[in-house]
């Protein structure tokens, strides 16, 4: 083989360099640094001094009732928001995919949360959640239900943040599902309709199974995003709920890092690593499920030879 000149060989690398540099500086370095900080004891961020290396930060984090509460809240939040928002989004995306009147209006209405500032909208929700003048309690009153103290110290404020969280991730979810729906060949619907299938049967027996890969993708993305739940708390409560009852993992990290004086960098880093592992593990699980689903449909062609 003819040896190409040196410059020819490194040319591809040069093209990739800007990207590699930005990934190293802004993605890899922070991750590595956080992992490193999580093992350093008595670490001073400004001087870089530390007293020892070990698992002390992790022991402290797990012993911290606030962290446990934050972890519990985060899981509860993910388990509430992701399934409910996915279910709602599948139904809405399916409706938006039909030829309906005012389609443009509905599409705009559902995508609006994406282009609005979540802080501004959060403040609007704060008014809607208000237990005295809020519209939600007004509606509950109209149908004869007791008003809920949404933002006060009760289970209400968890519900409030779940409602707000679902509302915030719907647009993204719907867009992904709509693109999934548009990839379903209309001939399947025609075939089912010719055989006399009605809307509901088509939805459950054809649309949902064919949309399953996209639904899986949406669940992964939404799980990762909701694990990182944090900014939804500010407009609603100006903090992590009432008396820290809505501490989440990311809020805990922020709290240890920014709010406490002196900041506990080690604890924050250890908590961040825990979050990283959780999200990573979750992603791996979802990927395994997806691979299984593909095998089930025989798309990888491995069992083609089976008699």
């Amino acid at each position, binding site marked *: 083989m003819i040896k190409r000149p040196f410059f020819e060989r490194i040319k591809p690398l040069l093209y990739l360099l800007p990207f590699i540099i930005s990934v190293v500086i802004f993605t890899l370095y922070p991750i590595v640094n956080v992992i490193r900080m999580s093992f350093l004891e008595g670490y001073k961020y400004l001087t870089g001094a530390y007293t020892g290396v070990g698992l002390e930060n992790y022991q402290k984090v797990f012993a911290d009732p606030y962290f446990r509460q934050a972890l519990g809240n985060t899981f509860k939040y993910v388990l509430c928001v992701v399934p409910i928002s996915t279910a709602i989004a599948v139904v809405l995306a399916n409706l938006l995919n039909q030829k309906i009147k005012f389609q443009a209006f509905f599409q705009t209405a559902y995508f609006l949360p994406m282009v609005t500032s979540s802080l501004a909208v959060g403040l609007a929700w704060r008014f809607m959640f208000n237990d005295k003048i809020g519209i939600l309690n007004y509606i509950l009153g109209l149908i004869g239900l007791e008003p809920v103290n949404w933002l006060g110290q009760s289970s209400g404020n968890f519900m409030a943040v779940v409602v707000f969280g679902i509302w915030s991730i719907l647009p993204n979810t719907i867009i992904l599902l709509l693109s999934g729906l548009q990839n379903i060949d209309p001939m399947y619907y025609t075939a089912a309709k010719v055989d006399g299938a009605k809307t509901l049967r088509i939805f459950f027996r054809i649309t949902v199974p064919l949309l399953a890969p996209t639904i899986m993708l949406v669940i992964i993305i939404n799980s990762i995003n909701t694990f990182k739940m944090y900014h939804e708390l500010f407009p609603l409560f100006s903090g992590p709920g009432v008396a820290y009852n809505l501490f989440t993992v990311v809020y805990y990290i922020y709290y240890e890092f920014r709010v406490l004086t002196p900041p506990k960098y080690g604890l924050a880093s250890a908590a961040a690593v825990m979050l990283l592992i959780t999200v990573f593990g979750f992603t791996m699980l979802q990927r395994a499920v997806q691979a299984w689903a593909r095998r089930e449909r*025989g798309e990888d*062609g491995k069992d*083609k030879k*089976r*008699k």
Partner: protein
Amino acid sequence: MKIRLENIVKRFRDNTAVDHFSAEIESGELVTLLGPSGCGKSTMLNMLSGILYPTEGKIYFDEDDVTFVSSEKRGIGLVFQNYALYPHMTVLENICFPLEIKKVPKAERIEKAKKMAELVHVDTMLNRKPGQLSGGQQQRVAIARALVKEPRLLLLDEPLSNLDARLRIEMREEIRRIQLETGVTTIFVTHDQEEAMSISDHIILMKLGVLQQFDKPQYLYDQPANCFVADFLGNPPINKVEAVVKNGKVILADGSDSGVRLEGHDDQKVWLSFRSESVLYEPDSQLKATAIMTSVMGKEKITAFDLAGKEVRGYFDSSLDFERGQEVGIGFKKTGVFVFDYESGERYL
């Protein structure tokens, strides 16, 4: 089931896809809708299936007017070009699905589906997903799914176009076998004349939304109604040379007499069309053609000639040998020779 189509017109905006189409299809027959792309054959099929409704005209299934009856109430089975098998269901589930919709009890629908799978020879792969089947097997499953609800009419939309050449021949024979075994009235859409010729009881040939001829395959070939029908059918394609009628003689462009006689169309410009098998070797003939090349086909050979500036082909016995550039005297048989109007394509002979 007998089908009667009366003056069907289908317009999309200002484009007429099907124009005053009338035909009667006998019960239990396999009829092919044949034509080049854009001839309206798929539109016609969609109107038969109820996916589209005609702009004008009536469709009768036996004595029932089904013109505006929706698909699911027509009792039809439809096989799609890409089969449209549900990828997430097994073969058995796919075949069962139409019965599931009809709320047939589970045991009964499995029994019926298995019988149907046996008929189309997919009973050994009931638990596989469509992704694990070959194209031909998917085709069989699609036919089983269309037939399982015992339709009055089976519609096949270009069912063989996604298969390779060998499988296509096998599957068209299979479709014919299944159709004969079940006796279901079948309408088959294709653009492939060979496919249509080989399996149909009757062929409807269409062009630009207009029915050109509705006849038995052999009759369509032997007695084409017009120039388009003659051009469309046959492989190799029919030979065409420009000619003029002078004193009842069909004279070619170079002034030579073709030997074909036609009364009553003097001084008209025409096409002289003849099948390759209708060319005769006549050493003493006035009509000369120049040999271009010969291909050996086994028991016979096909020779391309230059005849009055047009390339034409003829079948000859393999014992005959023509040199390239040799002048050969040719004549025509009585059959397979036609004269069409140059402009309208109307048949004169």
